[in-house]
């Protein structure tokens, strides 16, 4: 242990601890900007670049950046004397001098860490005038890059390369010219970006934001010739309350439904319903492959991989095009919902699919891209017309002047609003595979599953492995969240050394509850675990907790689809994948 003094407080910490962490242990907060941490997940960004966290170390000539300076025995540190405060203020003013002043109309206003620091440091004038860096705006189907607002903290680069191993973003060029950009400064759309949105969930400013579709929805809602329906993903209800000042982990399902009705949606449905439907299709596929494997079929592709997560789908299309027949062909719940809404439901209410607008509320940024994919269109008409994030929904509710906190609870509409506990837990890492086990167990063994909770599938470790007993047959289950972890399991599959029968993969750390479209967690990993707990609470509250017992699902198969895996189910609820090259060399026109 090393003993040091921080602001006259004695503190003991392990060797190798940074001054920043030692100070936190001593109860002293040091402001930071580029530094970012999700400690439970081992995610940390500390380039030591911004110099906001400088402190005075007695006996040292210059000020020390506390986020990267390790403690030494007997150090005496001052974190807020006049020399330190002046230095921090000067640094901040210099950063702001190369930042646009359009806070009033910035998508990140109110949630911007640069703005918060300017408030905290009481900046009231900007003495530094000079050239500001200018870069083109880049808009992809999901993400907008406005690099003029980038402060080069490089959190996004860390997320994209180290955590997600996507490698779409890097700091390029030098000095005043430096920007964070894809290779060769191509557009994000042409890069291997998966639209997981983790870059924008850690961006401290408005440099990376989602494409906002709220206005399209307002237009549809005010068009009397359109029937506008909405589906809400499981993870949204566990996080939306945060945007209205509620404690993380507060479930706001009923209020959310009320708010959507107030906003004017004709029907408020639940993606949990189509999550149950996903289990019927994906579970059937799992059992089919498993039975074939047990019968000695050597051609069968195992492990089966889940396919609910569009960021993950983009990732394997880019990075594992050779394994494209391994994932389940089941569409994601969002797209299953769209396909059923624009056929079964449209027929039921007698509306042409072109006059039915399907909106989705998602914790996800990649869903925006997913719903625009060509294979999810019929004659150019998308199955899901617009997808907005939890954050966009919160902003929409505020814009509509709805008093969210005082709304009564309301119930989802029938028939696409009924769901089970299995559908709800899709929002957590491990949830999809747990839901699949609940159904697959009963169908495979023909026995009733007494305990529906699979504790060994739950948790927050990046890669988890568990054995599930299917009445004598042991199923090896793998779970990965975060694309870097997914890559490790996929490398095993590619090498033929994977021990698993089924693997669940979610692109975002924590699963959908930590999605790129969720309220900003600002590095507080406790928020993620509280959201996860809320999801499991919602599951416990449900009387029906197995997808195949959902009465609306049973009815849907009886009236419309036939059996799971039927020809009709296949044409509506299954999809195919397309290999995408990660190489930048797409147009060849020369030789060296």
């Amino acid at each position, binding site marked *: 242990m090393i003993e040091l003094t921080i602001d006259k407080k004695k503190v003991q910490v392990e060797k190798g601890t940074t001054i920043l962490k030692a100070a936190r242990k001593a109860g002293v907060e040091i402001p930071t900007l580029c530094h970012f941490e999700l400690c439970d997940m081992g995610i940390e960004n500390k380039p030591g670049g911004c110099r906001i966290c400088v402190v005075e170390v007695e006996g040292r000539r210059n000020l020390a950046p506390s986020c990267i300076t390790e403690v030494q025995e007997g150090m005496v540190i001052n974190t807020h004397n006049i020399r330190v405060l002046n230095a921090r203020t000067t640094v901040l003013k210099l950063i702001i001098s190369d930042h646009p002043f359009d806070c009033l109309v910035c998508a990140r206003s109110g949630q911007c860490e640069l703005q918060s620091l300017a408030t905290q440091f009481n900046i009231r004038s900007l003495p530094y005038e000079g050239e500001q860096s200018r870069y083109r705006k880049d808009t992809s189907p999901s993400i907008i890059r406005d690099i003029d607002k980038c402060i080069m903290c490089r959190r996004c680069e860390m997320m994209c390369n180290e955590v997600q191993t996507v*490698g779409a973003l890097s700091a390029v060029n030098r000095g005043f010219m430096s920007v964070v950009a894809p*290779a*060769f400064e191509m557009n994000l759309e042409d890069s291997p970006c998966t639209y997981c949105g983790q870059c924008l969930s850690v961006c401290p400013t408005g440099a990376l934001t989602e494409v906002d579709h709220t206005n399209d929805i307002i237009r549809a809602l005010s068009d009397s010739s359109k029937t506008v329906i909405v589906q809400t993903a499981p993870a949204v209800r566990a996080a939306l309350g945060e945007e209205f000042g509620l404690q993380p982990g507060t479930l706001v399902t009923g209020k959310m439904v009320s708010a959507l009705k107030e906003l004017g949606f004709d029907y408020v449905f639940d993606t949990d319903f189509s999550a149950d439907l996903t289990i019927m299709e994906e579970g059937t596929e799992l059992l089919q492959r498993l039975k074939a494997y047990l019968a000695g079929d050597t051609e069968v592709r195992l492990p089966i991989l889940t396919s609910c997560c569009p960021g993950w789908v983009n990732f394997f299309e880019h990075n594992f095009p050779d394994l494209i027949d391994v994932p389940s062909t089941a569409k994601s719940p969002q797209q299953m919902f769209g396909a059923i809404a624009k056929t079964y439901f449209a027929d039921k209410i007698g509306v042409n699919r072109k006059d039915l607008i399907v909106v989705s509320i998602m914790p996800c940024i990649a869903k925006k891209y997913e719903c625009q994919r060509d294979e999810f269109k019929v004659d150019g008409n998308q199955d899901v017309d617009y997808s907005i994030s939890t954050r966009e929904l919160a902003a929409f509710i505020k814009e509509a002047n709805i008093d969210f906190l005082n709304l009564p609870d309301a119930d989802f509409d029938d028939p696409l609003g009924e769901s089970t506990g299995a559908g709800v837990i899709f929002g957590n890492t491990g949830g999809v595979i747990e839901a699949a086990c609940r159904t697959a167990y009963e169908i495979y063994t023909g026995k009733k599953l007494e305990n529906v909770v699979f504790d060994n599938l739950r948790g927050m470790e990046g890669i988890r492995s568990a054995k599930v007993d299917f009445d004598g047959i042991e199923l090896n289950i793998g779970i990965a969240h975060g694309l870097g972890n997914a890559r490790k399991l996929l490398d095993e599959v590619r090498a033929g050394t994977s021990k698993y029968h089924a693997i669940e993969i979610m692109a975002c750390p924590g699963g959908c509850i930590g999605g790129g479209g969720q309220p900003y967690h600002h590095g507080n990993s406790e928020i993620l675990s509280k959201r996860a707990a809320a999801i499991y609470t919602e599951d416990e509250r449900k009387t029906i907790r197995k997808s195949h017992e959902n009465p609306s699902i049973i009815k849907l198969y009886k009236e419309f689809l036939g059996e799971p895996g039927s020809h009709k189910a296949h044409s509506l609820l299954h999809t195919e994948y397309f290999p995408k090259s990660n190489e930048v060399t797409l147009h060849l026109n*020369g030789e060296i």
Partner: protein
Amino acid sequence: MSQNIKVNPEVYSFMEKKTGTDNVEVKVNLSKEKVDKINEICNMFDNEPRELINVLHEAQHEFGYLPAEVQDVIAHNLHISVAQVYGVVTFYSYFSMIPKGEHPISICTGTACYVRGAEKVLEEFKKELNIKVGETTSDGKFSINCLRCVGACGLSPVVLVGERVFGRVSPDGVKAILDEYRK
């Protein structure tokens, strides 16, 4: 190296890119031998990501510049993203994504050459070829670079064309030097 590489030098000029909207379209086809050569270079450094700068040095020595495709293969071998490779290539002015001309012109702007008028000589080359420092003429014949002191200060100002040294060059003499290679 063949000379049919289509390069739009504007794409690599930062200021142009800031206002432009076009993506990089510089594409060359790497023959199998070239890919093998890059693999060999990466192997020399055990495909170690930390050796990226050394790998890039060797690759640029081999190819004369670092086109996107070369960076792509290097990224693949070193198991890092091509975005990160591009990040390093753009950070160091030594690395270039523009092929040098058939006759690369290097003008010494070291102290001795500078005080004896190297800048005027440089201006004359730029004017005569209508390119900037670091660029290559559209026919691929000439490129201009500056360097610091070739150790022949007695001959200053010094200009190198390829490996050939021209001493005591005056702005008036620039055209004659170029004409020799224009034939």
